[in-house]
């Protein structure tokens, strides 16, 4: 698994807020998971205000991604292995 910047990804929302990301995930992705800020995925620790949500949609993983100067993005990363791993974690 490589660093997020070097991986194929699609931007679902850009220049958004943590609240909008949270709401969008809850409203649009039934398979969502609450994680703690700092949760490591794609070699990055997620930044966000709890409750922080990520989701899986088919083989894709949906995560918020925050940078100090660019705000928060909601991105879709195709990664069947990670999607399966997250589903497995949720079942536990």
């Amino acid at each position, binding site marked *: 698994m490589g660093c997020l910047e070097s991986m194929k990804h699609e931007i679902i929302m850009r220049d958004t*807020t943590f609240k909008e990301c949270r709401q969008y995930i809850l409203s649009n992705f039934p398979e969502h998971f609450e994680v*703690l800020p700092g949760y490591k995925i794609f070699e990055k620790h997620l930044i966000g205000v709890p409750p922080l949500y990520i989701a899986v949609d088919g083989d894709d993983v949906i995560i918020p991604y925050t940078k100090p100067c660019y*705000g928060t993005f909601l991105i879709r990363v195709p990664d069947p292995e990670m999607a399966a791993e997250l589903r497995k974690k949720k079942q536990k």
Partner: protein
Amino acid sequence: MPDTKTGPRDALLLLGCPQVPIQTSVALYLAGKLRKQGITTVITGNRAARTNIEVADPDRHYIGEVIDIDRCIAQLAEKKRDFHYCFSFIHNDAGLSYAATVKAMSPAAQILIIFGDHYEEVAGSVEFPAEIIAVKAVHNPMPLKAKIDEVFPWVVSNL
């Protein structure tokens, strides 16, 4: 790592995007005040924020260690490091997200320094317990400096 950090006091200064001019001068001012109190500081931010700080204090009269924000977050998340205080410089939603992330990972006393044109809106979005210093200050650092001077003695003696 214990719930409350022990040993000599230290503080993390978490910088936001340096697009609001006063951030660098107020961060240097606060680092100097903390140093005078014997509190070691570590400054973290993205490359632009760090470079502003390092260029402004080349001989490191006020600043100590300066580290990349992703590295700092990783060290906190992996419990390799912690601080007594975290002063977060916030003028937008992203800054608030970073502060909330540190709050979730660290027992450090959180002091949110909220400034910029939208300071009221940003301060109103805070959803976690923290001491808040919020002032409308963009180009002139004096209102924020005055507020820091007002609360600083209480912060270092009570938190």
